[in-house]
């Protein structure tokens, strides 16, 4: 299934603003992050498990177990610093 992946702030600078990713049926947010890390290169560096990365699914803060769906909008970004 196709999901749209968006990046913000320092992750956007490293990986670009967005990409479409083909994820296996039944994938979760955490599995998608692991698949992106497995590509190596910059993805592996900035999405590494030791890094503070937060995520959203369909524009709601979400965590690794969240199940993905066809057409989902996923986002990865650093801890937020507004206000």
């Amino acid at each position, binding site marked *: 299934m196709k999901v749209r992946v968006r990046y*913000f702030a320092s992750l956007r600078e490293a990986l670009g603003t967005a990409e479409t990713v083909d994820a296996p049926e039944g994938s979760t947010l955490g599995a998608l992050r692991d698949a992106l890390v497995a590509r190596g290169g910059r993805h592996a560096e900035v999405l590494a498990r030791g890094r503070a990365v937060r995520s959203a699914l369909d524009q709601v803060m979400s965590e690794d177990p969240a199940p993905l769906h066809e057409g989902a909008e996923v*986002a990865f970004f650093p801890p*937020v610093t507004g206000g």
Partner: protein
Amino acid sequence: MTGVPRVSIQAADFDLAAEVAALRAFDPGVGAVASFVGTVRDRNDGSPVSDMELEHYPGMTERAIESMIDEAMRRFDIRAVRVVHRVGPLRVGEQIVLVAVTSAHRGQAFQACEFLMDYLKTQAPFWKKETTPEGARWVDARVADDAALARWGITAGNA
């Protein structure tokens, strides 16, 4: 209720007096207004700061703040809320964020205003990049901000 939108994300500056006047207009039940304005400070983490750039996640940011306001309305006996957050380039001394709350009595307005700021700091998707003499750098999230939200019984998990 007023006809004022609850949330605005904008590049333009805001006028505290005008925002508060609009928020409490036509509501004679208001007996208290509490507001908070955050501004760009000239130092951060030991370095002088000249200006910053604020990025957000269009759509999600508005949605996140709307749900925070819903939560504040459930928790506190308040009448209306207004949140304005600026994005884009900002210089030292400029206003960044406004949270204003009206209620019948002061206690609930004070509390709801603080709750909303604590919530926004750790759960609304905004990112600050500040310019220092050493160059531009992304601002680090603070553990203290997570602790502030924890006082309200909410786990932030941000920093």
